[in-house]
């Protein structure tokens, strides 16, 4: 398609520029914005026969109203995907930044992708062992799942994410046919370096594609970053049959860029100034995880987001939780106690675990043990609250056992080393061992047979 070029803008407003009387320009089309010494990319976000509204990914500073040239490319924003991308580093819109050659072979694809037909999806059932007890036993990660980490400033979400990428494996499956796609949106240089170095150390870097939009990169570019990354991930998963783990960090920065753009467009805001379509927009990213019938690859997503003020009801974690299949919530109190990973298990959840654990997947007793651990640990919170009022001495024997169990659960079960890789059997046995602190009558979630097989009461507390 011949591209059309216009000289001069009618208006520049924040990240937006306006071109008057465009002819034959399509909605969502990509444009090049050319000044004397620079070429930037933009996208048509609203179009009428009188004016085209364009968002500029690299920002509008330095643009002039009269001299700027705008070239409409007649296609949506594309990224060239190929397996040459593995081991390489790109900016937020998919251009190489590692001084390596351009991607030569490959196929250009629309970064917005298309929704997977629900009738084509395959329900994810394969258990991924992360080696982290709290996750494996209580919020099991399933291949093809989207399981975000809800974190806060100063909490070790990056270390957990790295530990998962290093240790994640399917039981009894060949290693090798996996890849990692890492998309950074507005994170600090230090964080990006930490992740890069960790992947280098573990040797996974050669199977990794990195898309980096760091804190000092243009904010509007972030809107494209997760989409570019997922387009590459879809290619690897569904064309190349790889199992792809996608890390998206930090979604909060992404949403803020979206808010900035929406405000510039003068849209009606909904909660906290975020646009009313934030849910649909996030869904268009998160729903790109999954598995497809008759295809061997898969996309598993671990988005990371920091909850502003640790507030889980903030629109970003809230809407994310409504779309993703569970969440891993990090807890500041546990972190303060020096427990790593500081996973707040009661608020955390994996919606897909029910079909990927138990008989034939992990171990027969897994569903009941995890339910029991949740129930007992939840009771621990009640007992703790009571103990802080009436004092530990006044507690009943059964309540004191709960306290002891709670302590052991946090220090031995949740707590583990950054390089400690526990098998699911070790994790479940540990769970049973700790349940020994509780009297048998309290264990209502496990069956009588399971109690006979695994339960050993710890008399001394």
């Amino acid at each position, binding site marked *: 398609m011949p591209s059309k070029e216009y000289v001069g803008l009618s208006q520049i407003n924040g990240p937006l520029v306006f071109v008057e009387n465009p002819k*034959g320009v399509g909605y969502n089309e990509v444009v090049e914005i050319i000044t004397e010494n620079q070429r930037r990319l933009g996208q048509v976000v609203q*179009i009428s026969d009188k004016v085209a509204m364009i968002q500029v990914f690299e920002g509008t500073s330095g643009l002039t109203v009269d001299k700027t040239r705008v070239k409409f490319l007649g296609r949506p924003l594309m990224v060239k995907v190929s397996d040459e991308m593995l081991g390489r580093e790109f900016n937020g819109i998919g251009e190489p930044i590692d001084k390596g050659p351009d991607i030569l072979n490959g196929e250009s694809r629309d970064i917005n992708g*298309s*929704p997977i037909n629900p009738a084509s*999806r395959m329900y994810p059932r394969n258990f991924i062992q992360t080696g982290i007890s709290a996750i494996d036993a209580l919020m099991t990660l399933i291949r093809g799942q989207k399981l975000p980490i809800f974190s806060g400033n100063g909490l070790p979400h990056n270390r957990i994410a790295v530990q998962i990428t290093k240790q994640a494996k399917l039981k009894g499956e060949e290693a090798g046919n996996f890849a990692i796609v890492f998309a950074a949106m507005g994170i600090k240089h230090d964080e990006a370096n930490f992740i890069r170095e960790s992947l280098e150390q573990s040797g996974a870097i050669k199977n990794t594609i990195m898309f980096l939009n760091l804190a000092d990169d243009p904010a509007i570019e972030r809107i494209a970053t997760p989409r570019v990354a997922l387009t590459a991930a879809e290619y690897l998963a569904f064309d190349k049959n790889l199992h792809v783990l996608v890390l998206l960090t930090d979604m909060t920065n992404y949403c803020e860029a979206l808010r900035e753009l929406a405000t510039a467009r003068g849209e009606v805001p909904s909660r906290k100034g975020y646009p009313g*379509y934030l849910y649909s927009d996030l869904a268009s990213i998160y729903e790109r995880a999954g598995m497809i019938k008759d295809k061997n690859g898969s996309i598993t997503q671990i988005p990371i987001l920091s909850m502003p003020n640790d507030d889980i009801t903030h629109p970003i974690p809230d809407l994310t939780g409504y779309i993703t299949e569970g969440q891993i919530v990090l807890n500041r109190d546990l972190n303060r106690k020096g427990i790593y990973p500081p996973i707040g298990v009661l608020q955390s959840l994996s919606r897909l675990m029910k079909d990927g654990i138990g008989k034939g997947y992990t171990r027969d007793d897994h569903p009941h043990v995890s339910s029991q651990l949740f*129930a007992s640990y939840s009771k621990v919170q009640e007992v703790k609250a009571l103990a802080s009022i009436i004092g530990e001495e006044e507690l009943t024997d059964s309540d004191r056992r709960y306290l002891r169990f709670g302590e052991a659960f946090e220090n031995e079960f949740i707590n583990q080393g950054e390089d400690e890789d526990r098998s699911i059997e070790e994790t479940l046995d540990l769970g049973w061992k700790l349940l020994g602190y509780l009297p048998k*009558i309290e264990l*209502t979630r496990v069956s009588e047979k399971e109690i006979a097989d695994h339960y050993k009461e710890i008399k001394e507390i």
Partner: protein
Amino acid sequence: MIALDRKGILYSINGPVVKAKNMTGFMMHEMVFVGEMKLTGEIISLEGDSATIQVYEETTNLKPGEEVLGTGNLLSVTLGPGLIGSVFDGIQRPLDVLKAASGDFMKRGVFADPIDLKKSWNVQMGKIKDGDKVVGGQVIATVKETESVIHKIMIPPNVSGIAKNVKSSGKYTVDTVLMTVQTENGEEEIKLYQRWPVRIPRPYSERLAPREPLVTGIRVIDTLFPISKGGTAAIPGGFGTGKTVVQHQLAKWSDADVIIYIGCGERGNEMTEVLEEFPQLIDPRNGRPLMERTILIANTSNMPVSAREASIYTGITMAEYFRDMGYNVALMADSTSRWAEALREISGRLEEMPAEEGFPPYLASRIGEFYERAGRVKTIGDEERIGSVSVIGAVSPPGGDFSEPVTTGTKRFIRCFWELDRQLANARHHPSINWLDSYSEYAVELKEWISKNVDPDFYKMRDRIMQILTEDDNLQQIIKLVGEDVLPDNQKLTVRIANIIKVGYLQQDAFSDVDSNCPLKKQDAMLKTILHYADRSSKLVSKGVAVSEVLDEDIVNTLMRMKENVKSDHLDEFKKIEEKLDAFFDQLDKKYQVTTEA
């Protein structure tokens, strides 16, 4: 007639909302094809020569200057044999046909007939002969659509007159003309299918009061907060509280004839789960796969928002169609909040003045219109048929805050409120329906049916259970402050019995083979057993026997586990449990020489 060669010209595109001029002669809510790709859209406002259109597909690359073509029809659904067992998107395009046409990822501008018009069915004609008078809603033929559903072919609601050219029974395709009807305005062909505009409720002759419960197999619902056939209910709950699991349970075990499940702006994998699971699950009433009575609408969160807006109407119109055949239909919408958000998004693009939290001012009236399409009715037609549509909508309040506009708007129009509780969900108490804050206005109306068909004492027991739970809630406040030990023995016992009710009765494992579905008879027997224990133990405790004596580990364990240990078809085992209880208490009575007065 409306001319079909009308052409509009696009002049503005803003996401799913586009504007076109040269639109004089188009109807409000007319279905149109937009642009070179022929994307499906619907006119949502007309002003002078220009129209605003919401487009049901991605609008990327649409250009000003492209054409808009009219269809002459309001946005409608096709109703006929072949609906059951299908999976549609929000505007009734079958997903398997789309998959065959465009692969694993959804492409745009693909047109597909909702039902296969060329599929033949064995049509059993009724008694109508040439020259008979027929009226709208009259059944003229039947088709065995699945083993579970007999599809009745009806005269469309707005047609009546004299039948002509009536075919005899035989194998016909869906687009065969079974008869023609000579009406006042000319001849109407009656085929196996009819079309109906989604935004207009199908007519009925009379609305009836709710009488019969929709039995769901979920104890906390059936016992404490029952819903009637033709009733409305809302399930509000923050994320992770188990809305979808409850909706799936309802779709599986409700005693409706036809289930319509709308995945409205929710997760793709959840729809896949239903698709994989339902063909395997067996309907307890007739031993057939559940898919044989189910229709799915899957408009997942990443599919276009305007189709999400339409999906609710597509679903309820199909529900009304089966209601008109005299069936009890249950419709689940998961989640109505996503539908409301679609309204908000489109309203925002129209630059309408927002009311609360950016939602349009007409939000509550739209919610009301939707829920009012539920109901138990006498259908139109020549004979008396009674059908019902029950609507159960999930609500996803942002931040779990029940004071937000969708929840409050919904509360005004529903009569059952099943509030999901974050604390219960965190403790993995499922279903996490809060027993103190939920309510059902149908409870009173259903008392008569339950007393007659289940147990005359059922409601008495229900009230006692509620009493114990309420008392327990008060006691829990005290326990939180000073601990359980300081309570007097009778209150301690109340707390323990409440615990048995919570764990042994209200908690129900959706994924257990035995306990997933609990029939009313079993609920009745369980209530009896628990209250029997409560009676005999409180008698002992009131006579000064220590609480620890009646809280025998084995007995409590039996009560907690009977939901799992007694199968629904072995209810006589409750007799044995009762005997065991009696033996236990008799021996205690003896020990403490309490005389058991009759």
